[in-house]
């Protein structure tokens, strides 16, 4: 397996269980992935390029400030204390621009494919 995400297989069961809406639609079995988006020095780091429905993003706040990862459409809103790691699982395909509620200049976009 060439994927750098060694934890994918392990987490697949839990992620799928947590996302029942994805189960029926899955024509082919694919393992759910967990991607990390890291906040440091007042910036969201790179977002994963190939995220799919059922995948999870783990937000990691490496800053000394409280931040949030808040979707513009409010479909997710994660408050991240300094050093916090919290997860969002994506149940629907789409493009999700997001920003920090406290520091709106901190922005990013997640694109979730079917």
């Amino acid at each position, binding site marked *: 397996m060439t994927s750098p995400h060694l934890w994918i297989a392990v987490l697949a069961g839990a992620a799928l269980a947590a996302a029942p809406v994805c189960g029926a639609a899955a024509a082919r079995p694919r393992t759910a992935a967990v991607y990390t988006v890291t906040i440091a020095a*007042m*910036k969201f780091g790179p977002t994963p390029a190939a995220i799919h429905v059922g995948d999870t993003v783990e937000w990691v706040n490496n800053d*000394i400030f409280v931040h949030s990862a808040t979707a513009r459409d409010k479909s997710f809103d994660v408050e991240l204390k300094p050093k916090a790691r919290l997860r969002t699982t994506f149940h629907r395909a789409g493009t999700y621009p997001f920003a920090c509620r406290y520091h709106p*200049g901190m922005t990013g976009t997640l694109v979730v494919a079917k």
Partner: protein
Amino acid sequence: MFKAIGIAAAFSLAGSAAWAQAPNDAQIAHIAYTAGVVDVAAGKQALEKSHNKAVRGFAEEMVRDHTAVNDQALALVKKLGVTPQDNPTSQGLAKGGADKLRALGELKGAAFDKAYVANEVAYHKTVNGALSATLIPNAKNGELKSLLQTGLKLFQEHQAHAEHLAMTVK
């Protein structure tokens, strides 16, 4: 009109004439720390006086973020074995902050909110100017420089937030 005149004056001195030589790291750390302390004090005053939800949210953010930077700055100078060194710019900042607290202390309600937010805009603008023109370029230690750079990004966000708030607080 409530403008951060005292503070602006102190920083414009910091920008050029007051420093026969460029400030050293111990002075830079002291100035940055003092700038944070002044804004935390302003935020705490706002939390005592204001009943405006948006203003209180902003003040909470100021207290939280500036306290976090200052805690980090203290940890850093300790690690580096540097003792922050008082200097005329820090003294000007502290005095400007104290004068402003007194002036704002006499206001109430919407008049207070408006003056607090206007001062936060002016104050962050001034501090950001000093950070980019004087403090960051003169910082020798890499960790101090990088903390100041993160601080600048943070304070720019605060300035934008304050400017946005200034348009809504009537």
